[in-house]
């Protein structure tokens, strides 16, 4: 039941439209099936499967709107959900920022669904866990991991003739390997739309090797260091920057893109000229939905081009008010990389730190996009082009804007959390204190 075909979804939504007496009606129908397995202490702890489907309806009378949702799909239930939304809408105050629903749109197809992922079985999940636990036990290491797979569909329709439908599948895997003496820890993350690209044993081996390598870490003084950041380390900092590029906040003066005295930094150089960041739902390595919640088609959009702020996202309301075209926010983030491997970047580093991942990242100051957090699960000191020894974890206080201005070198891209991010070498990255945590 979780995945309805395009025709099945369309039939339900058309029926919903036919039951309405509102000035306009918008409806969204989506469903998914999610399976998971969790293990820790070298044994499986929980696993399960969750199946759900849901219909949401928004009725509009003039500038009055309200929503209601249901997960029953017989005619009586569909009539009921429309009626509830309409009754509430008549009671709601007018919203001066109300926008009429969009008319029909054309969408390019994005290859986000793979049957191979939808067909994942409980036995497959157990096998992935086993492929982590057994090698870990053999090396006196303790594995804790989590695999979740999902497949589903999304569709929207409105009474102005818009209809959009897509199917998605995804798999996410993370595992933490901790040496049994408690002095070493390694971690890895993998995600794909097509499970056939996933090799659980390979991923677990990476985490296992890092755990063993990171035993008995030495402390170094906090301060400014050249860092080689694996994509898993930088992705959240970059994401925080990308998802804060809304035009309204900048125009209102409360964004890192606002300028002193008014106006925004669009068209200005913000970071190193080698930085190019864009989003593209049609990228085959990180496919994403080709339309947003309003039904606006998503296109490839450049956000930072040669270090210059190229675009900001505009809601339909804010775009109309500012007299520009709306720009949907990004569904993924792609940062252009180079040819160098992580090993190449290590080789060219006289003194520096290799960072596997960052943890508990929180905003310190939204105006400067200053964030704090810590390194975790594999932090190593580099000297004269080689990893010399593991080091204790450290807390950082840094802004992605400062970080991208201190870019030394870009390496190869890797997929991480649905994005493509290169390994990067950054100078003068600010660490402010030491942590004893392993």
């Amino acid at each position, binding site marked *: 039941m979780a995945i309805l075909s395009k025709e099945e979804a369309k039939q339900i939504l058309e029926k919903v439209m036919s039951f309405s007496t509102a000035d306009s009606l918008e409806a969204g129908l989506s469903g998914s099936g999610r399976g*998971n397995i*969790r293990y*820790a202490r070298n*044994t*499986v*702890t929980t*696993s*399960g*499967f*969750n199946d759900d489907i849901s219909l*949401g309806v928004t009725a509009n009378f003039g500038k009055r709107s*309200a*929503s*209601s949702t249901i*997960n029953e799909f017989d005619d009586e239930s569909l009539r009921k959900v429309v009626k*509830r939304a309409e009754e509430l809408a008549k*009671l*709601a105050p007018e*919203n001066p920022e109300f926008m009429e629903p969009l008319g029909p749109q054309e969408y390019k197809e994005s290859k986000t669904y793979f049957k191979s992922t939808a067909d994942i079985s*409980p036995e497959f999940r157990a096998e992935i*866990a*086993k492929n982590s*636990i057994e090698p870990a036990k053999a090396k006196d290491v303790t594995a804790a*991991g*989590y695999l*979740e797979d999902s497949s589903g569909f999304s569709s929207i329709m409105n009474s102005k003739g818009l209809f959009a439908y897509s199917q998605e599948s995804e798999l996410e895997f993370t595992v*933490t390997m*901790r040496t049994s003496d408690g002095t070493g820890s390694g*971690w890895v993350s993998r995600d794909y739309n097509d499970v056939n690209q996933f090799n659980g044993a390979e991923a677990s081996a990476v985490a296992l090797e890092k755990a063993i390598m990171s035993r008995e870490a030495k402390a170094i003084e906090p301060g400014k260091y050249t860092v080689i950041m694996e994509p898993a380390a930088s992705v959240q900092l970059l994401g925080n920057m990308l998802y*804060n590029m809304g035009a309204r*906040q900048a125009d*209102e*003066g*409360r964004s890192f893109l*606002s*300028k002193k005295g*008014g106006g925004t930094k669009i068209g200005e150089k913000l970071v190193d000229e080698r930085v190019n960041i864009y989003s593209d739902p049609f990228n085959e390595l990180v496919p994403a939905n080709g339309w947003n*919640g309003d039904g606006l088609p998503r296109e490839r959009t450049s956000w930072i081009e040669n270090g210059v702020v190229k675009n900001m996202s505009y*809601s339909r309301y804010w775009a109309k008010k500012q007299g520009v075209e709306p720009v949907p926010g990004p569904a993924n983030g792609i940062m252009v990389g180079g040819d160098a491997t992580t090993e190449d970047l290590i080789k060219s580093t006289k003194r520096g730190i290799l960072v596997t991942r960052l*943890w*508990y990242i*929180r*905003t*310190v*100051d939204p105006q*400067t996009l*200053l964030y*704090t*957090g*810590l390194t975790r699960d594999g932090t190593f000191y580099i000297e004269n082009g080689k990893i010399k020894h593991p080091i204790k974890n450290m*807390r950082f*206080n840094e*802004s992605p*804007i*400062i970080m991208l201005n201190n870019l030394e070198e870009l390496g190869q891209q890797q997929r991480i959390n649905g994005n493509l991010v290169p390994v990067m070498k950054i100078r003068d990255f600010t660490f*402010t*204190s030491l942590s*004893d*945590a*392993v």
Partner: protein
Amino acid sequence: MKRREFLQLAGMGVGGALLTVPLIGNAVDMDRLLESPIDVLEKKRLADIGLNAAKANGATYADVRIGRYLNQYIFTREDKLQNAVNTESFGVGVRVIANGTWGFASTLDVSDAGIQKAAEKATAIAKANGKIQTEPVQLAPVQSYGEVSWKTPLEKNAVAVPLKEKVDLLLSANAEAINNGANYVNSALFMINEQKYFASTEGSYIDQDVHCIWPNFNVTAIDPDTGKYKSRQALSSPMGMGFEYMDPRASSKKEGPGGTMHYFDRYDMIEDAGLAGKQTKEMLKADSIKAGKYDLVLDPNHLGLTIHESIGHATELDRVLGYEANYAGTSFATLDKWKSKDFKYGSDIVNVFADKTQEGSLGAVGYDDEGVKTKKWDLIKDGILVNYQAIRDQAHIINEDESHGCCYSQSWNDVQFQRMPNVSLEPGKEEYSPDDMIKDVEKGIYIVGRGSYSIDQQRYNFQFGGTLFFEIEEGKIKGPVNDVAYQSNTQEFWNSCSKICDKSDYKTFGSFFDGKGQPSQISSVSHGSATTRFDGVNVINTARNI
């Protein structure tokens, strides 16, 4: 869902963000929230079907949770209602032990057949996982309570209050903030009702009706000349109360140092919004802190988060054992430290207790989600680590013969596991006020309200910010300051605790969306304390130029 993500999605963290409510449940109309829940006798009949089906399939233990979760969220911005959403989620979860292993399954289909099928599925999962399980589940005994019930003591069900009254309250608060100097304001009311029925093969049938409320706002002031902007959130605490929390009364508030106002068991949202407008404007002109060592005077509405992160999470036994190693992390408070009976977690005056019975708190329930009657117990006594937070399958590990009653699931659809109870710092025994404390500080900072917060995966190293900062010089508040964050190590920090105000200053802070587990679940919990002093803490300056 992490708190920050939720606040962003709700438009509280960023101006003008699209509002969506990502929490559990499907949107329903207001009337549905006031409909009578499913009859308790019918719940018992359905639960017995699940329990019997599990046993018939080979389970040695089973519990059934039938849940109806009813929430209402209202969001406004300046003079506009942005969204009012009612959500409902109804279903059943069945948990079993078969072949010494846990299994869980849930379903939306709350019928005889649906529950029977879920019980069979849960048992099958348990048996499948049993093949690679190494330690059979060992449950601490629990009393059979028979048919019992519990309800949050409340005077006014928030859902029954007309929507217009709630919207008017938020819009009035917004207007007050703007009238006092704010340029922008977002506000919200979160109202939660969990109707939970629990039954187990050990003979308990427990019906509970749990209510929580959280009013919040985010006020921003801008200085166009400098291009600077500052924001301040509400200084309310989320509470396990009804809408009576929103009825201000003079006896429930106190003026504090630096022109601050502190709310206890009632909240004056309009007054706080006005103060926020004024204080945010003042923050634009405040000095930047000089980095160095300071004595910190921490208000309960700030210290609650420090307790939460550095003691609450660190004493979760599942983290100590490694169940969270791949996600939230482990803990420095290892079993050997507890066994030594002399691990100095804090100074002699630090006494920290866990309590699931505290009236008005977010974590208060009569029974936990595996049918254990709730209670109060000590975690830190006279500075020494004396206990953890454990549930039925962990109690034997710390040589206890009963659970602490802190098992929780965010919905019927998720498996229950160990979650933090209310964890609180005992107030000082002698009469001592925040003003007395300020007088005794030579060089310090008085911090109010939550801000940026980050701690490592074993809960050693942390950095916290705050909402309002006031520099203290020779026993007096010098004025507001900006760009403050303090860094410390948990054990050093709690051992620097030198003075705690008395019980007249004791109040609760609340964490409304605390995340843990894979798949991640949220829970709400309160942390009580009085204003407390910590000596010689490292303060950094967070100002940057980009």
